[in-house]
């Protein structure tokens, strides 16, 4: 991810953070692209949040099935690089989604 793309993505965080939704489709990835190799395995999930669809990575160690209730949280989304700040972004988790 280009650093400029990363900073632009911040603009959407407040819109989705803490929102709850439902899994529409999911994948559990054992192999990832170079930015995420150190994070595997992880899930990649399509979620419906108040009628809007989002595609997000899943929380560490979590598996997702169609229909699961999830919540949008802020978590690390790529490996750390010496030249960058820690890269956080939106993910979904089932933890607390039903609370």
């Amino acid at each position, binding site marked *: *991810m280009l650093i400029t*793309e990363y900073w632009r*993505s911040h603009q959407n965080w407040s819109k989705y953070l803490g929102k709850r939704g439902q899994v*529409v*489709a*999911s*994948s*559990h*990835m*054992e*192999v*990832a*692209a*170079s*930015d*995420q*190799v150190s994070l595997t395995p*992880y899930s*990649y999930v*399509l979620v419906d949040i108040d009628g809007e*669809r*989002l*595609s*997000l*990575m899943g929380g560490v160690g979590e598996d997702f099935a*169609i229909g699961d209730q999830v919540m949008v949280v802020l978590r690390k*989304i*790529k490996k750390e690089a010496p030249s960058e700040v820690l890269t956080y*972004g939106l993910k979904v988790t089932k933890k607390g989604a039903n609370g």
Partner: protein
Amino acid sequence: MHIKVAGTYIGKFGELWEQSLSDLLKEGLREVVKDAQLPEEAIEAIFVANKAAGSFNEQRHLGALASEQFAYQPPAMRIEGACASGGLAVAAAAQALMSGLYQTVLVVGVEKMTDVSSAVASAILATAASREKEYGSTFPALYSVLANYHMHHFGTTRRQLSEVVVQNHAHALNNPQAQFHKALTVEQVEASPLVADPLRLLDCSPISDGVAAVILTTRECSRQTTLLGFGQGQDTLALMDRADLGSLQATTRAAKQALARAGVTRQQIQAAEVHDCFSIAEILAAEDLGFFAKGEAAGNLTTDRSPVIFNPSGGLKACGHPVGATGVKQIAFLSREIESGRFDLALAHNVGGSGATAVVSILGKTT
């Protein structure tokens, strides 16, 4: 449409360590002209299909690289539509011929993918997904989302995915240019490492190097294969923006146009080279092209109940998938099959990304 396929060339697909991108491009240009038995000067323009040489090989401006192989330097341009680059280049060439601007053109598809690590290749390939909306995904992940959705809603099984792979590897045994000449069993597919559940390593088309080329002409020609029609469909770049994850609408739209332009029905089609970048993609294609009702392809397309032979070349899965070359290879392969008399009418289906672009071409025998 009166566009004849005057020449074809398919190089060996695989990990071609000895050949560079430009070596492959030169091979394709040289050999297709030789096959057509035309003087070089007959080629009025060149369309180069390539997805990502700028990233894989740090080489852009492939039109110029192709043109300089001819002493008279004909006009040349690169066409990019992710994995549908080859099909799009053939469509662009056909449009140029139909406009009357040219009478004979050359289409070459090329990709050199194995000079980078698989993680870097995955990252390069993932640039065909939405950068803003699909961060963290890979193409196996996106197609596994489609696979899980299909399994959940239509009852498609893990074994049915494996049977697609087994059939394509069996077909590739008869294709000398295929990357893999290895028969597989369902058990071997299901024992291969998991990539993105439910897709395993042997569900995925390989990372390949390769070149394929065709010469298209509106002039008199001794070859019998004609490009009867083509169609191009589009959909949203990101999966999340689609209303239905059970089908690829771009395929349906492209097929409808292609069949109408060709003036044939799908019941007349005998063979189809479809875009099986992953096993689930062939099942989706068989349904979205209209050969099966939704949910019916998985249990039937590898049986004698199938109305067409799918992927007689071995498909992307077993023949290989040098991305820019794939769509051109489909046209070249089917043209050769038609010239040999094996088929009279065939369909090629080439998809870009997770279905944002699809090109369908219909080829038939005319005298």
